């Protein structure tokens, strides 16, 4: 069919079954926006209040829907604003497709108004990118972009489209399939190697499964849980793997790493065989991979061959899609017992007694615990970055069917609110709770307007300590408590701010108000906010 390339973009999005896009317009992307208006019944456009948040919202949407999500920005400043979100998605292997407007083809390279080399700027953080110079390529490029973003190890793909290209007329036909000779992601694992991995796991005395974000990427949650159950193997996760396993499961020993829990780190130290599933063993998870590989037999499944052996040497490398590999393993796995080993790990499980917080504040861990006991099982928790993130990661007890999302790899402050908006739009029936700090909230609270505008009823918890708490703690511990540039004096009264946005709010300063606030949060059908006041010297762990 004959149409403009801008209209063709809309057709591509429809063909990819995209129902919502997050964006921010400007001159260079106007042809596309004009075409999008004609499709407003099929594709909802959400005007975010900053382009990075459009990217984060798409990120949250993609995580919950399991499919690539779309964000849009104009050329120059709009595109450059998107870079943080692209890098954030890249670090966590989240499939987003970013569409940016670009100046006219004949103006590229002349430093014209709002020209930025966005494919160049984003290059280190994209799985792939396109600068579309021939409008005829558009259908193929979109087909490829969605395919590349969502398959193999997922990641962000950028399509930069000059204004004149958007306006050109083309014959539109969406390709049925893709064929990219340089991109053939492996999926099925080598069968003999799978058998070897399984027998190494079987012969272990103290086996341990470590789950990473790759398990979500391959939608292998059920498979890994089944395998752990059948073989009675204890499980820990990285931050990206949180909520694959329920905290209530007796086989679960928590998140490992620098900010992880004692039981998980003990498990890594004491196990004889460590089975890594879609986990890349980043520096925050394992600080001394070289010691680990000497003392422990390592089995490593990853879909990205480059991750195997990158941070930690694997005795049994296994390249493949976790879901398919685990399905093969489940066919062969026999029931086992590891009672002694599990009992040993139970000794290091933390007890749940919470210290009394100073007057006028609450214990953040106790708050997380109570919140998690009150919220329904299928709640999605979107945590920001900082102490709040770790309190949420280790203190919020995930039930079966719950989900935890955060910016794990990049640690991008300002992620939680926009990501929660995306998550809620992908799963309108599930409660979505944001956990953020007073620092991070001030990087993202402009998105309250977006949530109100589109009736996205997320529940926001701001943990206020009037500090950039995690950096303050770093200064306390590593720099002789010389605190600098971490004071958030001048912050608004968050309750008044909520009033200004016309949303319900509640300030929690003691145990009584804590219960009331949590109830309000649980029962509210609308966007609401609670501020939880914590001690300025409260510890992360």
């Amino acid at each position: 069919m004959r149409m403009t390339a801008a209209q063709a973009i809309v057709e591509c999005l429809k063909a990819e079954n995209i129902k919502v896009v997050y964006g921010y317009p400007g001159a260079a992307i106007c042809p596309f926006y004009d075409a999008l208006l004609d499709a407003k019944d099929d594709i909802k456009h959400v005007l975010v209040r900053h382009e990075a948040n459009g990217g984060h919202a798409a990120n949250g949407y993609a995580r919950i829907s399991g499919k690539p999500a779309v964000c849009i920005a104009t050329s120059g400043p709009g595109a450059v604003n998107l870079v943080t979100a692209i890098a954030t998605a890249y670090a966590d292997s989240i499939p987003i497709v970013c569409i940016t407007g670009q100046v006219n083809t004949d103006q590229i390279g002349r430093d014209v108004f709002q020209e930025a080399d966005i494919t160049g700027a984003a290059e280190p953080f994209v799985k792939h990118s396109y600068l579309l110079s021939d409008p005829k390529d558009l259908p193929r490029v979109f087909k490829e972009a969605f395919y590349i973003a969502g398959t193999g190890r997922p990641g962000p793909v950028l399509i930069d489209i000059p204004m004149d290209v958007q306006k050109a007329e083309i014959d539109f036909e969406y390709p049925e399939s893709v064929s990219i000779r340089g991109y053939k992601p492996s999926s099925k694992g080598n069968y003999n190697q799978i058998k070897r991995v399984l027998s190494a796991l079987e012969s272990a005395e103290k086996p341990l499964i470590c789950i990473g974000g790759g398990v979500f990427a391959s939608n292998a949650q059920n498979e890994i849980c089944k395998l752990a159950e059948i073989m009675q193997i204890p499980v820990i996760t990285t931050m990206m793997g949180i909520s694959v396993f329920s905290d209530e499961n007796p086989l679960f020993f928590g998140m490992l790493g620098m900010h992880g829990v004692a039981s998980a780190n003990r498990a890594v130290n004491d196990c004889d065989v460590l089975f890594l599933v879609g986990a890349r063993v980043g520096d925050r998870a394992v600080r001394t991979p070289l010691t680990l590989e000497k003392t422990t037999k390592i089995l490593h499944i990853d879909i990205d061959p480059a991750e195997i052996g990158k941070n930690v040497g694997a005795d049994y490398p296994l390249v493949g899609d976790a879901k398919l590999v685990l399905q093969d393993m489940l066919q062969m796995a026999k029931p086992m017992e590891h009672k002694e080993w599990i009992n040993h790990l139970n000794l290091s499980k933390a007890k749940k007694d919470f210290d009394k917080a100073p007057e006028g504040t609450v214990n953040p861990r106790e708050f997380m615990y109570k919140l998690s006991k009150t919220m329904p099982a299928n709640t999605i928790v979107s945590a920001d970055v900082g102490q709040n993130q770790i309190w949420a990661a280790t203190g919020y007890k995930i039930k079966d069917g719950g989900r935890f999302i955060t910016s794990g790899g990049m640690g991008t402050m300002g992620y939680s609110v926009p990501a929660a908006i995306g998550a809620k739009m992908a799963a309108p029936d599930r409660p979505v709770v944001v956990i953020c700090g007073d620092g991070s909230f001030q990087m993202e609270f402009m998105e309250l307007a977006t949530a109100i505008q589109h009736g996205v009823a997320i529940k926001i918890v701001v943990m206020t300590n009037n500090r950039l708490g995690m950096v303050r703690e770093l200064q306390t511990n590593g720099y002789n408590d010389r605190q600098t540039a971490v004071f958030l004096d001048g912050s608004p009264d968050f309750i008044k701010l909520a009033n200004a946005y016309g949303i319900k709010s509640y300030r929690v300063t003691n145990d009584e108000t804590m219960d009331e606030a949590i109830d309000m949060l649980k029962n509210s059908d609308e966007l609401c906010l609670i501020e939880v006041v914590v001690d300025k010297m409260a510890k992360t762990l």
Partner: protein
Amino acid sequence: MKHTISVLVENHSGVLSRISGLFSRRGFNIDSLAVGPTQDPTISRITIIADGNEYTVEQIEKQLNKLVEVIKVKTLEKDECLARELLIAKLSVPADKRSEVMTIAEITGAKVMDLTLTTMTLELCDTYSHLKRFEEIIAPYNVIELVRTGTIAISKGADTITAKK
């Protein structure tokens, strides 16, 4: 250790910057990088001479393979490949030294490309190590300009590196 890595890539603009970007941001050291078309006009071939241990080459190969426009990556074993590089050097040579330089050229296999009253321009196509030796030999003869193409290489015998259809 030096490694010779052959990379078949899509003949698109921008591929080279992706590859050089990858090397710099991952801290891989390149001695030389040479790129040109192949018998298939849609494919270019890049030959990279990189420095590093086993771990580094493995990572280089794997990271290159992740680039969508990279079709094939192969490290050529030192003894299994034929490698050549072209060097052009301009020497400032007074008339009385000309024959001396001519003798060097003859022995080393270099050719005189250009001659003026005050300069001689030599070319030599050979392996990396021969060129290095050649550079040392001509160093005393007032080299005023020197360029090298970077090594290109192909496997010995009937082996080929081609894109799978």
